[in-house]
């Protein structure tokens, strides 16, 4: 049963990656070559974010959820960089810097809350 569930998960992940890579789609081409590659990169980052949200939803302990939230925050920074390349708008990188700062402070506060101490100790 465990092997079967492992096999189903592996087939789903590999199938999604193959679907992302090999699907033919109409991408806007106002920035020249490499646009299809950048849009597929966005789809792969969305797949990784969905894996993180799986761990947020089904994590057995509270520390699992905190770890997954921190990792999701770091993923969004790379997502903002790729979106900045894809659309040519440079303010997405400012959003990424701010998101990294908020994610770091949030992870520190949640870990102190998990430890069960006051913040000034």
């Amino acid at each position: 049963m465990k092997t079967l569930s492992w096999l189903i998960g592996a087939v789903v992940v590999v199938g999604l990656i193959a679907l992302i890579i090999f699907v033919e789609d109409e991408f806007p081409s106002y920035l020249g070559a490499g646009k299809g590659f950048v849009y597929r990169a966005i789809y792969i980052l969305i797949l990784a974010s969905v894996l993180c949200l799986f761990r947020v939803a089904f994590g057995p302990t509270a520390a699992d959820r905190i770890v997954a939230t921190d990792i999701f925050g770091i993923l969004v920074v790379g997502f903002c960089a790729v979106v900045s390349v894809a659309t040519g708008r440079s303010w997405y990188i400012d959003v990424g810097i701010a998101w990294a700062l908020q994610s770091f402070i949030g992870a520190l506060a949640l870990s102190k809350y998990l430890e069960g101490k006051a913040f000034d100790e």
Partner: protein
Amino acid sequence: MNSVFDMAGFGFILLGLFFDLVGCLGLVRLPDVYNRLQAATKCVTLGTCSILFGTFLVLGPTAAGLKCLLCIVFVILTAPVAAHAIARGGHRAGIRLWEKSVVDRYAEDKEGEA
């Protein structure tokens, strides 16, 4: 923009995508909080820094590209600190290790203190 820098930047973005995906797969598959923290933090930090460096190579030395370099420095400085804080808080909150783990140095240190 020069085409050689574009191709190098896309190569770095591809490397970063690989590391991000493998890190999130480890976050789902590994058995323990500490194992998941190990895999996910290392892989996703390296992958995101690689994506940001590739973005710097694509955009060139403009304002946005230099902000990418600033963001690389910030992520490298803050991600291990957050991971260490989460692991310490989890261990002090009493979350158990995997039953096949062989050593727990932090518990031995806490026994020595008490």
